[in-house]
């Protein structure tokens, strides 16, 4: 029997669902825990075991649920489940090939009777080996010599990108926290409220302020362009007055003149 022993701290998770304890799962706990804590630990155990993270905001409330191991009745749900689980299955197979140098062939037919297959080194070679009941050690050694280099490179690349994705997600969450702070602050600063909640007076003020800020940004960009013309020469076409809707020629000329006068 496989015995799981957890000594380190487990992450704190919200337990919104009742998880039925499984007799086959044996866990050793250091001390007697309350029912709530037991559920909490089991939830955490499953989360750690599956390496899944509930980063997505949509699923925060629903979370991961255990489903009965029977055929899914609804057609659309079945199709979605097939797509997700097939990808996960192929991922596990790929990892096993990488870690242990095994040769694996998998064939699955979708609910629409389309074949999906994964194989290492290739589906054909694995099937041929299986059907012919032959060792083919020579072919095996030749193929194994060729492919590990490319796979190793791709695995490293994939690991690198996935770690970058994790970092960006953390940064995004920090930005979300900042926005929540801003939402709290918008009780005082009316201009940070959503546009739908502003009245006509506030909208007019906002429009005026944004137009002034836009002029400032264009002026600053022009200054940058003048200061580092050799470096930012390729951005010349961007340091132009943005097109105004229903703006008379007079103010435009005045603005251009003011902008030019500010630069020189």
């Amino acid at each position, binding site marked *: 029997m496989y015995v799981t022993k957890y000594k380190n701290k487990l992450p704190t998770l919200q337990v919104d669902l009742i998880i039925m304890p499984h007799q086959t799962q044996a866990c050793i706990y250091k001390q007697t825990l309350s029912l709530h804590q037991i559920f909490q630990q089991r939830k955490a155990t499953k989360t750690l075991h599956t390496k899944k993270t509930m980063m997505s905001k949509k699923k925060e409330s629903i979370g991961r649920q255990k*489903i009965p*191991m*029977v*055929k899914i009745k609804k057609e659309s749900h*079945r199709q979605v489940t097939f797509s997700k689980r*097939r990808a996960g*299955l*192929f*991922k*596990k197979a790929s990892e*096993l*090939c*990488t*870690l242990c*140098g095994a040769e*694996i062939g*998998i064939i699955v*037919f979708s*609910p629409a009777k389309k*074949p999906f*297959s*994964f194989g*290492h*080194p290739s589906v054909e070679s*694995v099937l041929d080996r*299986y*059907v012919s009941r032959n*060792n083919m050690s020579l072919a095996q050694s030749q193929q194994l010599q060729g492919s*590990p280099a*490319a796979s190793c490179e*791709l*695995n490293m690349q994939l690991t690198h*990108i*996935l770690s970058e994705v994790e970092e*960006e*997600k953390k940064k*995004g969450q920090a*930005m979300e926290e*900042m*926005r929540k702070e*801003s939402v709290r602050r918008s009780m005082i*600063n*009316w*201009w940070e409220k959503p546009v739908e909640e502003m009245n006509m007076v506030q909208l*007019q*003020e906002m*429009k*005026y302020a*944004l137009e*002034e*800020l836009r002029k400032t*940004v*264009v*002026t600053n*960009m022009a200054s940058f362009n003048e200061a580092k013309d050799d470096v930012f020469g390729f951005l010349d076409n961007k340091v132009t007055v*943005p097109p105004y809707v229903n703006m*008379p020629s*007079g103010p435009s000329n005045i603005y251009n*003149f*003011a902008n030019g006068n500010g630069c020189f």
Partner: protein
Amino acid sequence: MTRKKVKLAYISNDSSRKATFKKRKKGLMKKVHELSTLCGITACAIIYSPYDTNPEVWPSNSGVQRVVSEFRTLPEMDQHKKMVDQEGFLKQRIAKATETLRRQRKDSRELEMTEVMFQCLIGNMEMFHLNIVDLNDLGYMIEQYLKDVNRRIEILRNSGTEIGESSSVAVAASEGNIPMPNLVATTAPTTTIYEVGSSSSFAAVANFVNPIDLQQFRHPAAQHVGLNEQPQNLNLNLNQNYNQNQEWFMEMMNHPEQMRYQTEQMGYQFMDDNHHNHIHHQPQEHQHQIHDESSNALDAANSSSIIPVTSSSITNKTWFH
């Protein structure tokens, strides 16, 4: 023993590799079983081990034979259409992860620039040392936000017009009040010009503290915006002014307390605006001179409406210092 992220590389330790193989093989078989059960499909898996000549199969030898023969009877193109080897599968995953990373970065950038935009609106632009790329992104965010604001203004304007048309009593009441704002608006600039000429600090402070005059300062700015929006069509321009005055007065009469609160808010924004104008004082003066030199009637109207803003800037500068 703490859990660490498994490095995706060939395990060099022989016993460790064997143990990992056994565990993961069982897990893989379980996953194939779950997939076939949940989706009611036929599936098979063949795993050759470096340690054993006989492969591990799921569901059974006869099951695998049946699936393989079914697979082989399909046309060649159908077989290869959805077939991937490890390299192909890894490339697919890399492409998907790259797209996810790009989208995540774009979202983070948008949130960051929104925060920077709001900080700049209250005069904290010096906090961020913006380079050319930051300024470009900030300009883009301002454009997008300005579009939202304009769209919302159009929606409110249309609904305001409908309300005006449906309520004849309100229209009559508004008509009764129309002469008053014109008179007050005409008087305010003259008073301001006189105060600037006298350069009296006491008068400036009184002018700043007086809420009624403060209200007038904001209203001409709105008129200025209206004039700029539709300069060519005079009739439409008059209608625009009429609508704006009507909305302003209807709101004031309906909610006097709310109007006072909004006045305070506008006052706060007014201070921020002055702080913003103070940084670019000289360009404002140049614009003022250009307006004075113009002899066009419309430009003259713009010039007269612009005077309060410039004068208020000077006044506030005196008051702050």
